[in-house]
């Protein structure tokens, strides 16, 4: 048997090569039309505020990011749980298998509900961000 690391190494080489080639090819082919909108930092479609050297985003961006993390973690826990759920329910009974997860989700739900009610997902555009957006639209 050959070393399995060879295959992994090859994959890495290919993974690096594809984007690099694409960038190289496009820079050869495209016309160069520099404008401000193209040079701003791109981050999830958010319009940055302040100067481009110290990039700042609207606070709500972070809020959403945090909420995303909540769901992310939820998924991380729920996923393995669903895999073993039926076996566990068969061995220990449904309450033991189900209840902790219900409590866990309930806690997260309370947090989410609170954040929602307190306007964490309410998208308010700050005047500054809006102003910045106006200049290049």
């Amino acid at each position: 048997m050959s070393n399995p690391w060879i295959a992994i190494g090859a994959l890495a080489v290919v993974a690096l090569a594809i984007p690099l080639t694409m960038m190289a090819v496009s820079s050869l082919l495209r016309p160069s039309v520099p404008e401000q909108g193209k040079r701003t930092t791109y981050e999830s479609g958010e319009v940055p505020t302040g100067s481009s050297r110290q990039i700042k985003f609207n606070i709500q961006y972070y809020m959403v990011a945090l909420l995303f993390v909540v769901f992310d973690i939820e998924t991380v826990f729920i996923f393995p749980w669903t895999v073993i759920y039926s076996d566990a329910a068969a061995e220990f009974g449904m309450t033991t298998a189900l209840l902790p997860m219900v409590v866990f989700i309930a806690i997260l739900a309370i947090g989410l509900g609170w954040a929602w009610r307190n306007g964490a997902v309410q998208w308010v555009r700050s005047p500054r961000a809006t102003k910045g957006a106006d200049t290049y639209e």
Partner: protein
Amino acid sequence: MVALPDWMALAPALSLALASLVLLLADSVDPDTTNTGLLAGISVLGSLLSFGFAGWFITAGTGMADSTGVALFNNQLVVDQMALFFMAIVGSVTTLVVLASYDYVAEHSYQAEFFVLVLLSATGMSLLSAANSLATAFVALELVSLPSYALVAFLKENKGSVEAGLKYFLIGAVSSAVLAYGISLVYAATGVLRFDGVATAISSGTVQTIVDGSVQAQAGDPAVPMAILGVGILMIIGGVAFKTASVPFHFWAPEAYEGAPAPISAFLSSASKAAGFVLAFRAFAVAFPIGDLLAAGGAINWVMAFQILAIATMFIGNFAAATQETVKRMLAYSSVGHAGYVLIGLAAVSGSGEGLSLSMSAGMSHLLVYGFMNTGAFLFIALAEYWGVGRRFEDYNGLGREAPVACAAMTVFLFSLAGLPIGGGFFSKFYLFQATLNVSAWSLAAALIINSALSLFYYSRVVKAMWIEEPTGSRTIESYPMGLYTAVVGAALVTVLLLPGFNRVSEIAFQAAQLL
């Protein structure tokens, strides 16, 4: 008697967590609520319940049947006398703090958040008391820390508060990193995170693993690399030192205590400190038994490390407190000094590892008494802030004439902190002193005496200002806030009552320490 299910042993922590969830729900129902009474009521109820459970379990003797206590979740959490003792401290301090905050936050927005953060942090402390593994301890510690960063910066419009919060956060991040690295090194060296497993690894000298909840030697009997273990332990000491505001991790404390809202200063300097100490007590008594460590050789003599830290902390805290100009900052430094006193609990141990239970119980007793007197003192500052009294010593001149009850309570706190026999502080310091003499740790005993004498000097400055000096400017006190007053007077009452009741406290503490 009804036998409660095992998980109910965590009731002190659970009631705090539940109260915070209820608060979140209440705030979700009406996000713009300014019904401070309701919010504070829920919080007081939750923390009182927590204290009540802890007290009940202690008197009912939960976790005293054998030396292991009630083990939960594969020994990740253990509820024993020590855990309950600290849960009681946390519960009582939290009660006082939320009670006092009722008046304090009434003028601020984001009231629900304030109480939620306090309760979540308290939940972390309660859990930390029961943590029996480095992993759970770390998670609980972060649960303590994260809300407290936000709480310090709670006064959003106040530059001092925000700055203090940021500094606290930065130093906290550094310290957490140090602690996490220490934990990882210990894990690397011993192969386990559970305290009893670490202890087995140290005593047997081989790397362990946990199979089906029981600790076993790893296949091939690899030896524990003592040097790595030593570095890890030292870094854990660092993490603990941050939480307890001990030298050299104390830098955040004066700034955070001064900038934070006064009830939060009380909370951080009492409950948070106690939480740091419970981690230290449990980890070093259970996971890193000094006798085995010294026998194994090559690792670290943590008793000596704690001796150095204790003496340095006592001196730096008290000396700096002596030259402060503002009362709150003086209290902040004195709180650093008190961390030094409590460190004696881990430092007054003889070369062969004897005397640990006596010194630890002395430290625990001091923490309990300190929980009341120090909280009370900071709450008095909150009262003064509420009245618009200035921050300097001179601003307190003649306050005794306008608010005799509160000032009498403050006098009790300060003298008890100094160790005069007016409150439980006298006995707890005396007990610490005894612990040092027990193992002939003369340098610790001398440091304790010198610093207590010095502390009397700066504490009495406040007392002198309040009672003896003539008031300088015109100052009128318009209202006497109920919640704050109740908390201050209650704390003073308990401080005094701990004088006759200290016996019982020290008994429980001694029992708890012996069970470990």
